């Protein structure tokens, strides 16, 4: 990876870092933070589902683990917010490795893998709804206490910047992956496992790497979520809403592309917000719009918005060399 490879992610991150300071009101700021959280979760999904071709319905398992770990370590173990966040990411990655180990050992792929991930997420949701350590159905509250070391900012713009920086890190990670041997092997496995194996690729190891990274990134989204809202319950942490939004954003934005998940998250949540503002009080109307967007994407732009932009002639710098044009339909 050369410094030039990082130019585009760095530019996008800088631009997003400035956004909170251009006079956004509170609601817009919240929307921006939420967009970043979903973009992170979707980037995690993209690593496994987009680059690896292993679609998961259960990324909530990683999101929720990150979120709960951040909250519980602070409230019950008395750890600081920052170490809690790091441990949350590590624990999320560990849950990913565990699910991956079981699934890939038995050679699960396609819909079977998707269902297994869903099952794990649901088990975790039900367990955390009754376990004591997670506060059961009442949920868990992190005490409001402003301060940098508590990762709580009186001026919410700084939390937005933190979320943007996390997204920037995920962009750098995926860019590294695209340029590294690991990424080439992951795509090879997605395209044809047998052929990859014949070329000396340890398919199991590559998949394990992918699910661990993927889970770690999505867990980071969960950590930020917990720290942003300072409240968690089982439905929020392990509910299927996050699994679905992560995969929606990744697919609509462009599977197997660097900026796809970010674009997808911004567009989906942006359109959802506009719909809510226009239509008003009908609950769930934004979800209807999500569904329509997903159908339109799959039917007319299988490469997602990133792929569509490229087809219309807005070439991403270095796209030729990445060679992930549109990813997998």
């Amino acid at each position, binding site marked *: 990876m050369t410094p030039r490879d990082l130019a585009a992610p760095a530019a996008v991150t800088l631009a997003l870092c400035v956004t909170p300071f251009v006079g956004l009101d509170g609601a817009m700021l919240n929307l921006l933070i939420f967009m970043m959280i979903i973009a992170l979760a979707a980037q995690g999904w993209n690593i496994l589902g987009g680059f690896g071709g292993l679609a998961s319905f259960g990324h909530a398992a990683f999101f929720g683990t990150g979120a709960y770990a951040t909250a519980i370590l602070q409230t019950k173990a008395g750890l600081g917010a920052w170490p809690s966040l790091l441990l949350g990411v590590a624990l999320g990655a560990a849950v990913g490795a565990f699910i991956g180990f079981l699934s890939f050992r038995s050679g699960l792929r396609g819909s079977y893998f998707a269902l297994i991930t869903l099952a794990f997420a649901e088990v975790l949701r039900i367990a955390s709804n009754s376990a004591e350590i997670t506060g059961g159905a009442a949920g868990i509250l992190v005490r409001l206490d402003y301060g940098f070391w508590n990762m709580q900012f009186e001026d919410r713009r700084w939390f937005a910047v933190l979320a943007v920086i996390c997204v920037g890190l995920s962009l750098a990670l995926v860019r590294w992956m695209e*340029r*590294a*041997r690991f990424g*080439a*092997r992951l*795509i*090879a496995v*997605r*395209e*044809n496992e*047998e*052929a*990859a*194996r*014949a*070329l*000396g*690729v*340890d*398919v199991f190891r590559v998949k394990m790497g992918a699910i661990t990274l993927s889970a770690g990134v999505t867990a980071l989204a969960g950590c930020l979520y917990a720290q942003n809202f300072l409240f968690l319950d089982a439905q929020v942490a392990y509910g299927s809403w996050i699994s679905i939004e992560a995969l929606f954003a990744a697919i609509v934005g462009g599977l197997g592309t660097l900026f796809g998940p970010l674009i997808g998250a911004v567009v989906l949540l942006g359109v959802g917000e506009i719909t809510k503002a226009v239509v008003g009080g009908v609950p769930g109307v934004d979800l209807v719009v999500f569904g329509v967007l997903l159908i339109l994407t799959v039917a007319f732009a299988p490469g997602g918005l990133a792929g569509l932009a490229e087809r219309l002639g807005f070439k991403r710098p270095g796209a*030729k060399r990445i*060679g*992930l*044009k*549109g*990813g*997998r339909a």
Partner: protein
Amino acid sequence: MLLAEGLTKRFSGLTAVDNATLRAEQGAITGLIGPNGAGKTTLFAMASGFLKADAGRVSFAGEDVTATPPHMRAEAGMARTFQIVQPFAGLSVRENIAVGAFLRTPSRAEAMARADAVGRRLGLGPDLDRAAAGLTVAGRKRLELARALATEPRLLLLDEVLAGLNPSEIRDILPVIRAIRDEGVTILMIEHIMQAVMNLCETVYVLNQGRMIAEGPPAQVCEDPMVIEAYLGKGAAARMRADAGGAAHV
């Protein structure tokens, strides 16, 4: 270089390969021929580790690799191509080859450079930036060969790389295969095109209904009555001899 001893594979009642033994000598081109359904590809799959043998053992460069998974065999220097070509459709030709080259280097720049060199050598130069899915049949066969070659193998297992090519394409690729051998790569090839087998192979094994029925230099194997019968049916060898004898009398 490669020694397969007594390999047997049964698919629920059907014995696809039955106690077959085969040796690919260091630095030589060895052929494996036989009628359709003889079990050649199954034998290949066992040699490269993609199928588990029910009995028998495989050793590579003096080491027992019977239980070694395919990717480890590739790392040890054994590369294979597939009869049904398996390109990474979403990647460019260069990236396809680079996946092979990545086996020997973690650096992207090096892998890409190596992919360039191997691709050009196999006549894929103009197609390097194209999507692999857009290649012709001949192009895909070359790509299979290029990818395998990019892993810098000591032994190359070629499963019908010439099938589906027209005579002029075959003429183009024969010298390439010979050149690979001349660089010290041992080659074991399944082939249907006899012209190529006669042309390239030092030794030929003949598989019929899962059994090894003949081995030797290609010219000698082609005269073997068992081999002629395997291809043309029972009694064909005797009839041919009779015909030849009759013609001599006239």
